[in-house]
């Protein structure tokens, strides 16, 4: 399987609704923080991977080229990768194969998103992802997909909205301890259920916000890792998978693409029983029901059973399987690609015991981060361990 790959440093900007910084400047702050965290200089970096979602968010075509200097790519092999919302976790898989293959010894992975540029609301950037012949004439709205999925999920397993709302309550509360969080708050299930209905059954507090922000990590191989840190975190598995490109043809209540991606990563990491072997998990939670959906896709519980874990308190920071200890996208914020990388960074900090007030109660040896995107059909998974 090639060289062992480690993450040795990480950094991020605050996630905010509208940053004064340009996208380049956000990328720079995150990249510099990641380098500084492990005493690395730009000259120590062999290659740079950039993750960023649609050009239309920042309002800059060829965003990869635009962001390159802020990502530290001058004079280096550089690649932008993009699988929609799955990008943040996928970018780590790209960094992994750069190092595992032996092509490069060190790699800087930077993810940036400046969604506030899009006017009047970044949701508009998604309208043209729908089929121009059969869907766009209906005047679609991005929330359609999520509302229809959520409805199907609730119907199939008899899940109540009250149970789903607990995800938003947990994550926004967890985010109170995250210094970079945008919408951390203490709310109740009732607050969620009383919030404005956006696209039934999706309500305002079920949804993550529009955000600007950037994250970065430094990756290297087993030979150099200890030059940068005493506490390398190893990437033991990566996986990614696409479902059908027709969102209506997927199983709306089960994310098979996540399962396939997870199986690829588990196999690589030698994990036979993920429920016993994964200590902490950051599933993608742009909507509260998606955290539950994804826990099931990751095979961390039976289908339709994720809400029970939540109700029983098992997914709290002091529970058996802490889920989104960071506060997730619902609490920390959702600058698309940066949000996915934030999840990987949270697992990195948790495994090193550096998560501060967010540190989970149990001693964690292995954690998983997952994201989801494209036309909602890509699953990306990274497994880290110490």
């Amino acid at each position, binding site marked *: 399987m090639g060289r062992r790959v480690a993450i040795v440093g990480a950094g991020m900007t605050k996630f905010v609704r509208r940053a004064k*910084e340009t996208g380049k400047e956000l990328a720079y702050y995150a990249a510099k923080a990641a380098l500084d965290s492990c005493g690395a200089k730009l000259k120590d970096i062999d290659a740079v991977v950039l993750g960023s979602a649609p050009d239309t968010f920042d309002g800059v075509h060829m965003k990869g080229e635009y962001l390159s200097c802020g990502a530290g790519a001058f004079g280096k092999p550089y690649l932008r990768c993009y699988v929609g919302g799955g990008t943040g976790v996928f970018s780590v898989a790209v960094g992994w194969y750069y190092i595992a293959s032996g092509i490069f010894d060190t790699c800087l992975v930077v993810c940036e998103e400046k969604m506030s540029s899009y006017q009047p609301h970044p949701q508009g950037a998604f*309208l043209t992802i729908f089929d121009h012949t059969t869907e766009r004439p209906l005047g679609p709205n991005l929330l359609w997909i999520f509302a229809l999925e959520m409805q199907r999920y609730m119907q199939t397993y008899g899940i109540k909205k009250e149970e789903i709302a607990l995800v938003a309550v947990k994550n926004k509360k967890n985010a109170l301890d995250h210094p970079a969080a945008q919408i951390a708050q203490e709310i109740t299930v009732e607050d969620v259920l009383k919030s404005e209905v956006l696209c039934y059954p999706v309500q305002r507090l079920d949804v993550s916000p529009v955000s600007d922000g950037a994250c970065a990590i430094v990756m290297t191989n087993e030979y150099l890792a200890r030059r940068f840190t005493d506490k390398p975190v190893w990437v033991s598995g990566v996986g990614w998978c696409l479902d059908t490109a027709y969102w209506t043809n997927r199983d709306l209540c089960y994310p098979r693409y996540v399962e396939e991606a997870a199986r690829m990563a588990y196999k690589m990491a030698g994990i036979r029983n993920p429920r016993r072997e994964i200590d902490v998990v950051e599933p993608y939670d742009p909507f509260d029901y998606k955290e539950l959906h994804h826990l099931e896709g990751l095979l961390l519980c039976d289908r339709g059973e994720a809400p029970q874990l939540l109700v029983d308190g098992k997914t709290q920071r002091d529970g058996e399987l802490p889920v989104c200890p960071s506060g997730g996208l619902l609490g920390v914020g959702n600058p698309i690609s940066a949000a996915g990388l934030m999840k990987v960074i949270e697992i990195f900090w948790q495994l090193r015991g550096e998560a501060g007030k967010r540190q989970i109660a149990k001693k964690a040896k292995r954690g998983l981060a997952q994201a989801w995107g494209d036309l909602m059909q890509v699953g990306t998974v990274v497994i880290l361990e110490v």
Partner: protein
Amino acid sequence: MEQKENRKKEIIHFFGQLPVESLYTAGIAGERFLLGLKEGKFLANYCPDCDFVFLPPKLYCEFCFRELKEEDLKEIENKGILLSYTFTHIDTNGNRLENPIIVGVIKMNGTDTGFVHKLLNKIEDIEIGMEVEAVFAPKERRRGSINDIVGFQRID
């Protein structure tokens, strides 16, 4: 011709748009630069590690990643050399312009970067290597924009 071919009646077709409107911030360094222009000043910044002067100024040196702070700004003189120029005879839609737009890349004295802007002289008066200076809009019309500079003109 090609467009007409695309609109043949026997082919079912429809029009759509990719609507994009953006609101950009100038950024930390960009704002420092534009506020300088508003005052009729060129603010550049210097990376001592790379011995390199950026105009417009940047938040960071892209070569070594040193952060360039407010105190690294320095005003440079309004004088430079024309490195290259072109006359644009068509607009972005391919229509012929009555008066061509002349743009050039200028290396301002004391900087290591190129600066692109319009040239105000007649075509026959322009040559590579000539010394130029920026013409600023009247103070009351400046609003912190790259267009606070009307263009560059030859210094004789």
